[in-house]
């Protein structure tokens, strides 16, 4: 066989492999949307879940997912911001910085179930928080920190050193230069990072089943007092999310319409995550245009 033929065969194989991968994605999205969307109705989104009867909705799971996401971002963003600033602006080039970077890498490669178990051990058991939104948000924070920190760090590093020199040469403190000049210039990158991490957090389940728990108690959506046990804002109540819900109805096998509920929930989950990805892209482009062009 001459090299020309080999070349053609190899190229052909590559095309087949690429087509297969695209096909897999189309199948996945198609399957989820085609089997799931018919079950997504206003009723499905706004009624409570049922354990032993068919026809349950995902109202509480949807709210829990969003609430957990917001809490997680509130806790993790300031820490990631501070750490990202440290790594990009202050970190000296020595062994300690190397160690810290390694630690962050280790954290990012830990299986999420291990992070969930750590949260369970420390917060649910040791600190007696019980299965709660707060414990879940903390576990998700640990899960989220390495990626968010890295995206903050990278966005800051993308800002040209010329900007830092400009600030410093005007007599601004290093800190003011960072917060007033470098950080605003890095906002598009940081925002994109936040939204992408939000997508990841939104779909995460393994870190949550033993921290936020697997039950969605009935809550009162008109009780705005976070201290009250029946309030939907109470951070100390257990909270099953959409992702955990899919896992649970499938593994427990007591819900008669588990299949349609899972497809519907998967569809909702995927659509929300697609929206996150899309908005990250659009927002990044838009902010970039806005910053470089006329106001």
């Amino acid at each position: 066989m001459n090299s020309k033929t080999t070349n053609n065969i190899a190229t052909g194989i590559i095309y087949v492999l690429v087509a297969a991968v695209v096909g897999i994605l189309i199948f996945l999205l198609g399957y989820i949307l085609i089997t799931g969307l018919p079950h997504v109705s206003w009723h499905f989104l706004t009624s409570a879940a049922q354990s032993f009867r068919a026809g349950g909705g995902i109202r509480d799971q949807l709210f829990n997912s969003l609430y957990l996401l917001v809490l997680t971002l509130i806790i993790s963003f300031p820490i990631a911001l501070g750490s990202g600033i440290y790594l990009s602006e202050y970190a000296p080039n020595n062994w300690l910085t190397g160690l810290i970077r390694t630690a962050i890498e280790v954290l990012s490669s830990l299986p999420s179930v291990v992070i969930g178990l750590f949260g369970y051990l420390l917060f649910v058991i040791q600190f007696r928080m019980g299965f709660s939104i707060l414990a879940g948000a903390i576990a998700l924070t640990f899960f989220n920190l390495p990626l968010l920190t890295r995206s903050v760090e990278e966005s800051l590093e993308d800002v040209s050193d010329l900007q830092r020199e400009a600030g410093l040469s005007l007599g601004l403190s290093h800190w003011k230069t960072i917060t007033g000049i470098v950080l605003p210039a890095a906002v598009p990158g940081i925002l994109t990072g936040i939204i992408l991490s939000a997508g990841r957090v939104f779909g995460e389940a393994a870190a949550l089943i033993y921290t936020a728990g697997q039950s969605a108690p009935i809550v009162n959506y008109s009780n705005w007092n976070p201290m009250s046990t029946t309030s939907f804002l109470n951070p100390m109540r257990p909270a099953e999310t959409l992702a955990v819900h899919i896992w649970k109805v499938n593994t427990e096998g007591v819900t008669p319409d588990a299949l349609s509920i899972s497809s519907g929930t998967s569809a909702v989950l995927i659509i929300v995550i697609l929206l996150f990805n899309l908005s990250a892209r659009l927002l990044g482009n838009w902010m970039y245009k806005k910053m470089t062009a006329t106001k």
Partner: protein
Amino acid sequence: MQDYSFDKTHIIDIPIEKAMTTENLQVFYGDNHAMHDASLQFSRYRITALIGASGSGKSTYLRCLNRMNDRIATVKGKIMYRDMDINSPKINVYEVRKHISMVFQRPNPFAKSIRENITFALKRNGIKDKTELEERVESSLKAAALWDEVKDELDKSALALSGGQAQRLCIARCVAMKPDILLLDEPASALDPISTAKIEETLQQLRKNYSIIIVTHNMQQASRIADYTAFFHMGHVLEYDRTEKIFTNPQIKATEDYISGNFG
């Protein structure tokens, strides 16, 4: 490259009032000894040009003068300003930079509006009064010969300015701080001839109120605008004198060769 002696130098003292001086300034980038014993005096309200081949240490020297090398290099020797050695660790560098401000080779406006580019540092330094800020914006833009071009679009992003405009904005930004001394590192090297001419015009205007030290590669530029000129060669200052003297009657062979284009 021909070896020029570092032993024979010709460096004059400034007879009139001085803006700042350096004494035996040495700079090390790690092991790289990039500047040897530079002792120069800069006169007040005059323009001093620093010339020399690429890599001769002009930027290195200039950046020491307002401590911009702090995090990058080790700087030894004295930098005297108002009878103080501002190279001492006890000195507050942020205050130093308010009095001795720098414009860089590549224009570096902030990703903010033209107005904010000027007011940002002013506000951080405690100037809150609206009319005072407006006044500084206008006067500094006028001083940098940019006012007429941008007065109607002060809220436009500074990133939309042309290179020459952006560089003048950077000069205006420094001027607005009302510093004592302006340091400029090849401010026109990235610009076209028309923008360069405008910047030179600007510097001639500023000379009335500021002491200016400018690094330039452009010999004509140095001879046009500078009162004094220093010639740098491989980390040494070989000659420092009045500009006419340097360009008509250099005392050092290296300077002569460099100016006549026979260098190397």
